[in-house]
């Protein structure tokens, strides 16, 4: 089992009570994952940063609604997923999932995957329908449970499982074709 990716539950509560340093800890802890998710959903760094910034500002403004018995991670990703949908809808005329700016490529080599193959993965990901890409990213890249994914997306578990399966089937075929 992969280690938990959630944060100490006391930190969101401190942020809720007005502790800006605690809020900064939240941003520091989650922003890479948020950026990654937003980038793969939106395709461009600028859009991703906009979505992530909007997400955290919205989180800050509504921390009072965060229940002490709730987990922060799915709450955050629910807001982020909605922000991404908003940005994507606004800019849907953009068709290509072209990443801009400098991307750290070291990880691909560390995983034993060539840069070419990584680009193929990203190209295949881009071609997935948005709801399948969302489900695949949440499940396989962000390591979230289906229960958390249901909270984030508002979609039923069975439908989410089917989306992930279809995404994996498509990716598998595409990646094998490229080999």
């Amino acid at each position, binding site marked *: 089992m992969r280690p938990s990716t959630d944060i100490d539950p006391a930190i969101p509560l401190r942020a809720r009570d*007005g502790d*800006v340093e605690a*809020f*900064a800890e939240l*941003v*520091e802890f989650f*922003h*890479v994952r948020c*950026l*990654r998710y937003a*980038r*793969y959903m939106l395709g461009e760094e600028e859009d991703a*940063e906009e979505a*992530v*910034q909007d997400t*955290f*500002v*919205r989180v*800050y*403004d*509504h*921390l*009072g*609604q965060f229940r002490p018995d709730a987990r922060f991670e799915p*709450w955050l990703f*629910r*807001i982020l997923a*909605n922000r991404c949908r908003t940005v994507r809808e606004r800019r849907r005329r953009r068709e290509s999932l072209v990443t801009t700016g400098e*991307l*750290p490529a*070291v*990880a*691909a080599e*560390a*995983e*034993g*995957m060539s840069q070419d*193959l*990584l680009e193929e*993965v*990203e190209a295949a*990901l881009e071609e997935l329908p948005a709801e399948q890409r969302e489900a695949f*990213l949440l*499940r*396989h*890249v962000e390591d979230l449970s289906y229960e958390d994914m249901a*909270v984030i997306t*508002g979609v039923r578990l069975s439908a989410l*499982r*089917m989306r*992930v*399966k279809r995404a*994996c089937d498509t*990716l*598998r075929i595409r*990646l*094998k074709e490229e080999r």
Partner: protein
Amino acid sequence: MYDAPDELIDRAAAALRRRHAPNPRLVSRIVALVEGRRRRWWRAVTWPSAPFSLSATATLAAAGLLLGFLSREATDSTGHDQPVAAQPGAQAIPLIPAARASGEAVPVPVQFTLRDVRASQVSLVGDFNGWSQTATPLEPGVEPGTWSVTVPLSAGRHVYAFVVNGKWMTDPRAQTAPDLDFGRANSVLIVQAP
């Protein structure tokens, strides 16, 4: 059966996971933004210097103070249409300050009332008090089961809810606006400047 181990998928996901690096510039920008905003605890809202007159309420309300639930977003998509009589009642009563400084935006005192004989503790949460469950408690009225509080609200759209015995509930007499981000509906109130 859906998430059976698959080396190719696992390697692809792992590579995607490591594709991004920390972005200190973005972190700084976000933190600076929220430090500039602070939480909206009664932000930009101050009471008028003179006490407002309860007796003036009806006259001034008839003269044009509008307190309504008119937002385009204020549609209960959940289809809740339960009879009000079966639920605690809630009512926002517009009051207006008797004096105001000329040229300044003057907050409008708004009274929130709730009728719920089961309630032992009631508070008001909303975008105007940072959604704090402790900032705005309702006081019990003379009549059993009645609760009320008056708060100064700036003109504009406000979103709020009651917390009754620790549980959030919308105002059964107000329009509700579903909030996709936070997973529950809230009540909507629009206050027009007097």
